[in-house]
């Protein structure tokens, strides 16, 4: 579980987050949405310690993130940034680097690390890509490799910044199933999504950000009914129950 209380953070003296409080529960998907520049990515970076908190607190399983060493933090939280380098290494090696926090100097990967990597790559259905260069994979497959690396990191909390960016609709849906599967296995997922309908479809909780604060937070239905999307994006959203679940659509 991740508990954020009255968090203020920013870059240098510029405050971007002006008092964020949010709780992401164990085994749930919490999605942060909001207009460009409202501070969504900054919030994720503050949670993983990439930018320091000016005030407030972030706790993972009751422990203050500020009090954790970088290795302790890496064993609790994994983070998939938005604009990642595409290193020219094999997919298997990329996933293996997820085991980095478990090594001590001189850091040599052990048999147990290779076993974990094989296991998570098999789970993600990408074991056959282990020897392929990361740069030769499609965007969707590459995203699965990064998620496999996060799984190899064996953290309870997985944070993803726009994991569906640059993916076609088929791969977006495939990725959302993967994320759903992770939450069902008990992982706490916090992610930023631009696709509101996808966020409504797969999230357990949605936090809507405006100008560095969370203006509304609730279940997808509560978010839809609050009318906040009309205020922020100028479109209202409706839903229909088709027997297989709730489907959301833009009311244009």
């Amino acid at each position: 579980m991740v508990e954020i209380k009255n968090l203020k953070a920013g870059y240098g003296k510029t405050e971007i987050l002006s008092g964020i409080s949010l709780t992401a529960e164990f085994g749930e998907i919490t999605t942060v949405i909001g207009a460009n520049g409202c501070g969504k990515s900054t919030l994720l970076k503050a949670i993983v310690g990439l930018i320091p908190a000016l005030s407030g607190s972030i706790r993972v399983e009751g422990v203050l993130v500020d009090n954790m060493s970088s290795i302790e933090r890496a064993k609790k939280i994994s983070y998939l940034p938005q604009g990642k380098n595409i290193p020219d290494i094999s997919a298997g090696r990329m996933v293996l680097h997820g085991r980095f926090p478990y090594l001590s100097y001189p850091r040599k990967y052990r048999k147990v690390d290779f076993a974990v990597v094989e296991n998570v790559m098999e789970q993600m259905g990408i074991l056959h890509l282990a020897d392929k260069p990361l740069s030769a994979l499609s965007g969707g497959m590459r995203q699965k490799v990064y998620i496999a690396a996060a799984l190899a990191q064996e953290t309870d909390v997985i944070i993803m910044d726009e994991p569906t960016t640059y993916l076609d609709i088929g791969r977006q849906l495939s990725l959302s199933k993967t994320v759903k599967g992770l939450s069902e296995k008990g992982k706490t997922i916090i992610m930023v999504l631009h696709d509101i309908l996808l966020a409504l479809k797969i999230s357990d909780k949605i936090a809507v950000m405006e100008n560095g604060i969370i203006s509304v937070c609730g279940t997808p239905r509560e978010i839809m009914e609050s009318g906040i999307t009309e205020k922020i994006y100028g479109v209202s959203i409706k839903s229909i129950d088709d027997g297989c679940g709730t489907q959301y659509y833009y009311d244009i």
Partner: protein
Amino acid sequence: MEKNNGRFWFLIICAAAVCILSALLSFCLGSINFTPKQIFAALIQGETGACVNILKYARLPRTIACLAAGAALSVAGAILQNVLSNNLASPGVIGVNAGAGLGVTLCCASGILSGWAVSASAFAGSVIATMIITIFAGRTGASKTTVVLGGVALNSILNAFRESVTTLRPDSAFMSSEFRVGGFSSVSYVRLLPAAALIAISLILLFTLFNELDVVALGDETAHSVGLSVRRYRIIFLILSASLAGAAVSFAGMLSFVGLIVPHLSRRVVGNESRRLIPFSALLGAGFLTLCDLAARMIFSPYELPVGIIMAIIGGPAFAFILIRRKGGRRHG
């Protein structure tokens, strides 16, 4: 996983064979030619005489210098390329060699000519140049082009300072023209041994940090996510590359091509993973530089060209050829 190990070990053995062969040729060939049997008798069985002195005090230090400088500059280039995420980075391009050159020239201008002092000043010069370029990279958001352009500017500034010192204190130009292009004709144990020790220590340290180097190359945010202190390790790697390049420059002069071309070639052959790239670059660089030095000695014998000239003549077109061939299927861009 790890299917390519067999191929890699085959390539490593080939590179090691080239290294050994080039070292043997460097021992045997020159103004006086020796057979392997004579070399064995002189170095192992302790024979004495003029020929033995040539082997012990000219050929041996020269061969060690070629191997050490080739390995050091190639590995320094490979580290810089990974840490700065820029395949154009190399000690010669971004001013590390020029920093070492200025350090050596200032040391000589102040009248200190001991081997340790020359090595230490080269190291200090290269570390200062590396720190300047790192701060510059940090301030400018580390854009790939900007770092290289900044490095080119730093190169010019440091070389201008070095030339000024040489002009004002002609005594400091004790190895002037050869130092500028790089060469081994004036190598002696006094200058070689401290630098070789620094190179050996840096390489041993680096060989325990391959995974850290790969994780730094994943990018700041991903590296941070897996618990690596990016800033600390970036500084460690920059100091290691500066010590390798600085030590090499202290006795070999400002050789520029080897630190750029060998890591490029190595990446194409064994890929980007440090545990493969660094040992292969070290062996390839050592063998390549030793062969170039041999060519520099032999082509116009008894006259000798500085090895930097030979490397530019061979390396320049070879590098251009690689770039042209790569145009169709670029992956490392």
